[in-house]
């Protein structure tokens, strides 16, 4: 027998009204503006754009506000929004070599061409809570320094590449797959792995990257370079047949240099992992580059033993919208499922009791 249950409409409406009230909080305190969120919680906004896989700071700020600061909920909102829009086309691949650099550091060369530019970093802060920030004390304008000369900021990888000491970028041709359009079937190419990692949960990616450092996988890495800055976006206008600049986006790129690979035919050279993420997020970009390298195990004939080397494991569990959907669906009504299991447990117990009773009679 199936019994349809209705009800809860009033409870749901009132719950949403309560949510709106709690989101707004004390009415004597001014409401947050989207400009405040985008401007002062910009790294939260960046994370929502990266994992929401939609570059739009204003929408991401709105999502953060609507989600009461629950970033995974905000990411969910952004993902849902993107499904309502048509896709006009594809941009030309960004040229990170021409990034307008806001931060750039290398752990492999101290005096590299272009230099070490710290930018707005948390590094070297003491991680002591600053009571002054509880108020609204005036903040100094940043220091400025005239540019000595228009100095090129070559990619660190290119320095090693000139000597043939590191693997190159590989063939620049090819049409990448798109996991938002086509079902994924394994094994997948690096293009799909990089797409999945770029939008994967930061915590998941971080934990996997960390696991490779602790021995679950074979990565012995150096940060060749991390760079953050603005890159131009160019698209082709179909009616015109040429590409035009349509704006710029802030990206974080990490070039991870990993241990060498060589053979009888080929001299040993460093291998690489790559990370590229929307916004300013070097933790995510670095973790992504570690996992990208770990996932290339087959290319280098490495044994695949650790979770970070298992592409199906990484790709199927890295998406926090999918993950939260499946975990959180457990709280939805499972009354009938549970009733069936309850009946089953009762029957099992009854049957066992009966068997015990029968055995008891036999032994007596």
């Amino acid at each position, binding site marked *: 027998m199936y019994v349809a249950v209705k009800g809860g409409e009033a409870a749901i409406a009132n719950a949403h009204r309560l949510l709106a009230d709690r989101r707004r909080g004390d009415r004597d305190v001014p409401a947050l503006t989207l400009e405040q969120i985008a401007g002062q919680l910009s790294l939260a906004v960046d994370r929502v754009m990266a994992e929401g896989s939609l570059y739009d700071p204003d929408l991401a700020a709105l999502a953060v506000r609507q989600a009461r600061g629950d970033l995974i909920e905000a990411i969910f909102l952004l993902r849902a929004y993107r499904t309502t829009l048509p896709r006009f086309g594809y941009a030309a691949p960004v040229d990170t070599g021409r990034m307008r650099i806001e931060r750039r550091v290398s752990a492999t060369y101290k005096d590299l061409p272009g230099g070490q530019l710290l930018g707005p970093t948390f590094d070297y802060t003491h991680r002591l809570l600053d009571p002054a920030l509880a108020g609204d004390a005036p903040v100094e304008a940043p220091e400025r320094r005239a540019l000595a000369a228009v100095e090129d900021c070559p990619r660190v990888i290119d320095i090693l590449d000139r000597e043939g000491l590191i693997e190159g*970028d590989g063939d620049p041709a090819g049409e990448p797959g798109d996991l938002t359009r086509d079902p994924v079937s394994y094994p997948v190419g690096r293009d799909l792995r990089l797409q999945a990692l770029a*939008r994967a949960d930061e915590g998941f990616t971080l934990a996997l990257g960390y696991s490779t450092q602790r021995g679950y996988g074979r990565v012995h890495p150096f940060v060749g370079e991390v760079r953050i800055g603005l890159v131009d976006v160019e698209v082709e206008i179909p009616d015109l047949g040429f590409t035009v600049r*349509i*704006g710029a986006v802030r*990206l974080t790129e990490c070039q991870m240099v990993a241990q060498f690979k060589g053979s009888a035919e080929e001299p040993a050279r460093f291998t690489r992992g790559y990370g590229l993420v929307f916004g300013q997020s070097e933790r995510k970009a670095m973790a992504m580059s570690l996992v990208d390298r770990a996932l290339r195990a087959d290319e280098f004939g490495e044994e695949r033993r650790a979770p970070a080397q298992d592409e199906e494991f990484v790709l199927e569990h890295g998406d926090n919208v999918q993950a939260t959907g499946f975990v959180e669906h457990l709280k939805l009504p499972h009354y009938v499922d549970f009733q069936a299991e309850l009946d089953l447990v009762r029957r099992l117990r009854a049957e066992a009791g009966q068997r015990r009773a029968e055995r008891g009679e036999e032994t007596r």
Partner: protein
Amino acid sequence: MIDEMETEGRRRAMGALACMPAGLLAQRYAEVTASAPPALAVRGPEVGLVMLRGRAGGGGAPFNLGEASVVRATVRLGSGEVGHAVILGRDTGRARMAAHLDALWQCPDWRVRIEAEVVAPGLAAEDEAVLDRAEETEATRVDFFTLVRGED
């Protein structure tokens, strides 16, 4: 050759119109188009997405990085010139203005004026913003000092 120069000039102008600060575009547009032939909407402005791409390792095979919101518009002048605009974000007014200016740019008598009064100030504003950021970043450059120990 002339076609190539024309294409390059238009590319540069469209890029400038898309990337200049929205406030400056609106202000320049109002001034320049006060006496200009009006634009008829052909398509949009409409908001959609473009998929941004990166390259494995920075220079290798392309991969899909994630989408960005864009707004696009196509307009036509009474004399037949068709103007296009595609701009990151969702500001429909901006796309309409940029498309109108792109159409006008194709008219020889308007081109000089748009170049001088919109494109040039637009590129200058962009350069200035880039320089501001670059100089702030430059102040965070690490100057290493080498300590010499011993006699030689």
